[in-house]
């Protein structure tokens, strides 16, 4: 097993997985420099990607299609968007729906007319259609009806929309799915993972959403212009930037981090390595201290814009606001950042002084001044051989037992017959084909249980091994006990990937699935995590990010912290060339 404390030749090692991999902490993660959206926007700017709108054929009612192409150094990727006229009563956040306001695919290259015809017959059907190896994602989005109508009405009447109403919702449209990785016929990840621009996790999904945001901005301008005619104005860039893309995420995402243990280890491991490197920085320059103070102030603004009616998250946000104020006072008091290993000192202080939400926020903040030692870790966050994790049958029972006790020792003494430990069942419903969480003792779902309780299964494996001699290879055990094959594979994964396993019981009565969602969403870079129940959340993606035409000269990295000058742009509006096909923006044009 990897010794996490010695992975790097540094005085402060990575944090103990037993501390990090608790759901309460994972459920407090914030986006950071390594988040996949920031990796994408940094790359787009660094490599001077350009963007063009090949097609924008949308009628006055907002029905039609558009093609928005991102031109990279070696390849092009095109968002193909279909806009529909969806009656209000059909608008649903459920992943299983039959109609949406807009549907999308990310096409590998620039589609021909024949491609567009094929896609028109399939993409609007979403799961009921088929896409092919030239498509990388399949997605859809619905309007936020109240913000959409407010923005269209205002722009059509020649006014800018109300900034408070924009901030209250945060997005004009929210996606209810962004499928990639071979789903519904799309290209498998392994066929594109060798491309440098797509090597990092979820880059096609993140690019899809980035382009959707630009399309939605263009669409709202277009519809307002069609309604308002000569009176209409375009959405002011400063207001447009505040608007992100919403996303509704339910239980479907929770199994992902259990089903991809090696990948989870890479993500968490990269962040923990980044933290350890930051904590080992001997001194912070004045410029680096300024970076930290700046992002702290902006994080405080972000926390004031973060709203949730969910009782747990509501209290966490209040706690975060208090804690960030406390952090600011602490930093302002004298020489905290001027001493030896300033980020380590701050991190240690926070462990006692702040709640989990603010502790993990601080982890993200103190990575910001340390880009030089952090950003290279982005290249370590992929794992494309997850499903090919072969079992090593030579490993001894004794070694297996040792790993089980080291990783799951905390759980071996639990009473796994007690109802509260096994209250829940993860299953997939035949009706909706959605992952669900059922009640083992109240519903007849146990026969359909998915293997999403790794701690329980590890403890069962440990019991099954009890009578086997230490020196026996596990191959012998598996021959007799194929039922433990899944759990044994996970033991071998966690033996070399210390952050692969959640150190909590994922079927306990008190489980909050939203903690699992939050952990994953933070790596995407999602903000304004707003649980609508214990089981699903709304989030916002790309709020405050530069649009494609702003990217070359814009803030491609720190956009995820809102700007400190919070005054909305209300002055004369500069349009952004909405209706005419042609180049939206180009570094080369400037």
């Amino acid at each position, binding site marked *: 097993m990897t010794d996490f404390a010695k992975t790097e030749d540094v005085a402060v090692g990575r944090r103990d997985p037993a501390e990090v991999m608790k759901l309460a902490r994972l459920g407090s993660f914030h986006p950071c420099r390594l988040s996949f959206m920031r990796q994408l926007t940094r790359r787009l700017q660094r490599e001077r990607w350009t963007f063009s709108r090949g097609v924008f054929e949308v009628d006055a009612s907002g029905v039609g299609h558009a093609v928005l192409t991102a031109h990279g150094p070696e390849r092009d990727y095109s968002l193909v968007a279909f806009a529909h006229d969806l009656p209000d009563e059909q608008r649903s956040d*459920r*992943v299983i729906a039959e109609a949406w306001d807009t549907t999308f695919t990310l096409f590998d290259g620039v589609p021909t007319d024949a491609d567009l015809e094929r896609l028109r017959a399939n993409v609007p059907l979403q799961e009921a259609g*088929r896409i092919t*190896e030239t498509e990388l994602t399949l997605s859809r989005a619905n309007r936020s009806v109240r913000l959409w109508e407010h923005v269209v009405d205002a722009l059509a009447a020649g006014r800018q929309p109300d900034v408070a109403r924009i901030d209250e919702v945060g997005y004009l449209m929210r*996606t209810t*799915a962004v499928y*990639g*990785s*071979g*789903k*519904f*016929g*799309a*290209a498998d*990840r*392994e*066929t594109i993972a060798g491309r440098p621009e797509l090597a990092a*996790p*979820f880059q096609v999904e993140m690019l899809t959403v980035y382009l959707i945001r630009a399309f939605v901005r263009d669409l709202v301008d277009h519809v307002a212009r069609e309604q308002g005619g000569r009176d209409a104005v375009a959405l002011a860039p400063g207001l447009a930037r505040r608007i992100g893309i919403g996303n*509704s*995420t*339910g*239980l*479907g*995402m929770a199994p*992902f981090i259990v089903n*991809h243990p090696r990948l989870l280890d890479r993500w968490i491991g990269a962040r923990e390595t980044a933290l350890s490197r930051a904590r080992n920085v001997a001194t912070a320059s004045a410029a680096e201290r300024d970076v930290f103070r700046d992002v702290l102030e902006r994080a405080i603004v972000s926390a004031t814009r973060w709203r949730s009616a969910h009782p747990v998250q509501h209290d966490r946000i209040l706690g975060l606001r208090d804690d960030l104020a406390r952090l600011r006072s602490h930093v302002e008091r004298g020489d905290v950042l001027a001493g030896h290993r300033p980020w380590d000192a701050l991190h240690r202080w926070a462990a006692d002084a702040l709640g989990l939400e603010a502790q993990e926020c601080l982890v993200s903040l103190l990575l910001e001044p340390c880009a030089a030692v952090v950003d290279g870790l982005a290249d370590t966050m992929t794992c494309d051989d997850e*499903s*090919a994790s*072969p079992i*090593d*049958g030579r490993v001894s029972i004794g070694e297996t037992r040792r790993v089980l006790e080291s990783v799951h020792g905390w759980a071996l003494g639990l009473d796994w017959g007690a109802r509260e430990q096994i209250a829940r069942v993860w*299953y*997939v*419903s*035949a009706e*909706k*084909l*959605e*992952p*669900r*969480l*059922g009640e083992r003792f*109240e*519903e*007849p*779902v146990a026969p359909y249980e*998915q293997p999403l309780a790794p701690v329980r299964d590890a403890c069962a494996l440990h019991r099954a091994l009890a009578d086997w001699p230490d020196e026996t290879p596990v*191959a012998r055990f*598996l*021959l007799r006990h*194929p039922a433990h*094959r*899944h759990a*044994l594979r996970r033991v071998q994964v966690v033996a070399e990937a210390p952050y692969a396993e959640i150190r909590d019981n994922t079927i306990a009565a008190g489980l909050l699935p939203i903690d699992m969602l939050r952990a994953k969403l933070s790596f*995407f870079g999602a903000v304004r995590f707003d649980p*609508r*129940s214990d*089981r*699903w959340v709304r989030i916002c993606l790309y709020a405050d990010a530069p649009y494609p035409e702003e990217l070359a000269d814009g803030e491609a990295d720190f956009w995820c912290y809102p700007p400190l000058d919070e005054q909305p742009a209300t002055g004369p509006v500069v349009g952004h060339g909405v209706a005419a096909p042609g180049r939206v923006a180009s570094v080369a044009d400037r």
Partner: protein
Amino acid sequence: MNLSLGELEALCRKAARGAGFDWGVAEEAGRAARQLSASGLRGAELLLARLDDRDGTSAAPLSPRALDGEWRGGDGPLCPILAGAALADAASEIDLSRGVLLHDVLAPLLLLPFAGLAARHVERPVTVAWADIAVSHDGSVLRASGDHRSAFERRVDRVRCRACTEADATRHPPMARTTRATLDPLDLSRLEAYAQRTCAPATEDSRRRGAGGGGGSEIDSG
């Protein structure tokens, strides 16, 4: 129907589970079907035939009883997924230079992906041979002699698995790789029927509880 290999693997994993395999074995079945399909072999169809063999029988095809030189299932034929997993697990323990003889095996092509895992352990290609067909796997590349494309045998008396030399293996050309699989609609629907068995029928109670939450499930790929 043209499928991505990821779709095919997920479908086969669920179908294997639906037909009664333990999850960890079903994972092997899905991976094996995918790997065969990536070499243009009919991995999903072979697995489907295996699931049909298994389905509804109380005496399910078996693991080898012991890991000596000759493997038998005992009361019935050897299951290629279970026997294959045993081959990969025990590759370093058994004498693959001499080879093992498997008696009465179902769908022996399904052993190949496991021969590939065994090859990585012993750092030599491993050949799976029966009748006049021999297919070698060096851990990444499959090479065949004989008419392996018609080798859709559902049951074979004797199959030999043995490590061979690089020179032996490379006498035959590598099989072409593909990134897609084509499945007959009928086979697809039958695999889906097995996969569907892993899903719980909805109850009024679960609907009322809103077990799925109410939100969508999104950006869910990896």
